[in-house]
């Protein structure tokens, strides 16, 4: 199964809609609740990151019997120092993002915690690609 969602930067009222859709589909597929929670928490943090930092983005979700692979691709400022961005507490979020209850520098570390594999590539003034992989089998 292959799902694609377009994400609009700056539109906080829709932030989380894609993650919500994915959660409903994973539930229908009878995937274990604990695994669903890990996937959707990581996905939601990633979706909020696109809304908070980028102009727009695309989320693709590929589901097979073995694993779920999520790729979040955005057109945005890029991350100058990925290692620093992975540090807990480091954030470049705007006051608007903080008003939404985010922007405390916890998103990327929490995404890593909730995935089995996570990869980030980024290019300044172009955008960022985050790949999240969760295995469904023990």
């Amino acid at each position: 199964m292959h799902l694609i969602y377009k994400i609009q930067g700056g539109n906080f009222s829709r932030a989380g809609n894609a993650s919500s859709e994915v959660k409903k589909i994973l539930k229908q597929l009878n995937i274990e609740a604990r695994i669903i929670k890990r996937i959707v928490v990581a996905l939601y943090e990633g979706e909020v990151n696109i809304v908070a930092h980028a102009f727009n983005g695309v989320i693709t979700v590929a589901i097979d019997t073995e694993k779920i692979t999520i790729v979040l691709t955005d057109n945005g400022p890029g991350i100058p120092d990925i290692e620093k961005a992975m540090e807990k507490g480091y954030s470049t979020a705007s006051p608007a993002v903080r008003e939404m209850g985010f922007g405390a520098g916890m998103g990327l570390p929490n995404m890593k915690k909730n995935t089995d594999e996570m990869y980030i590539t980024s290019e300044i003034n172009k955008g960022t690609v985050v790949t999240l992989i969760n295995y469904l089998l023990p």
Partner: protein
Amino acid sequence: MKLSLIINKINGTQLAGDPLTDNEVEYAFASDLMSDVLTVEKEDILLITGLNNLQTIRTAEMADIRYIIFARNKKVNCDIKRLAEENNMVIIESPYSVYKVAGILYNLGVKPIF
């Protein structure tokens, strides 16, 4: 602890969810920072917050949280209420501060998650 008793003790108004609220609440967590809420691994907890926007409901949805108390007299708008109802959540408004709500729940025996 029965949710109906919690609502009564915090002078709460229930805005969405099953009106019988015979449900039991064992654990609670208080935060205005949704990133913190998303780090909580325990499911089926009650969230006490003063952050009243759609992302509070979205966060609760992802974190499998079904009960939310909006403290310090924060009012819930119809978009928040609708999204909570879609997700079968119970939402409650309380005029008390987060600190006071948390204190009352703690005294009632609702446990902290850490």
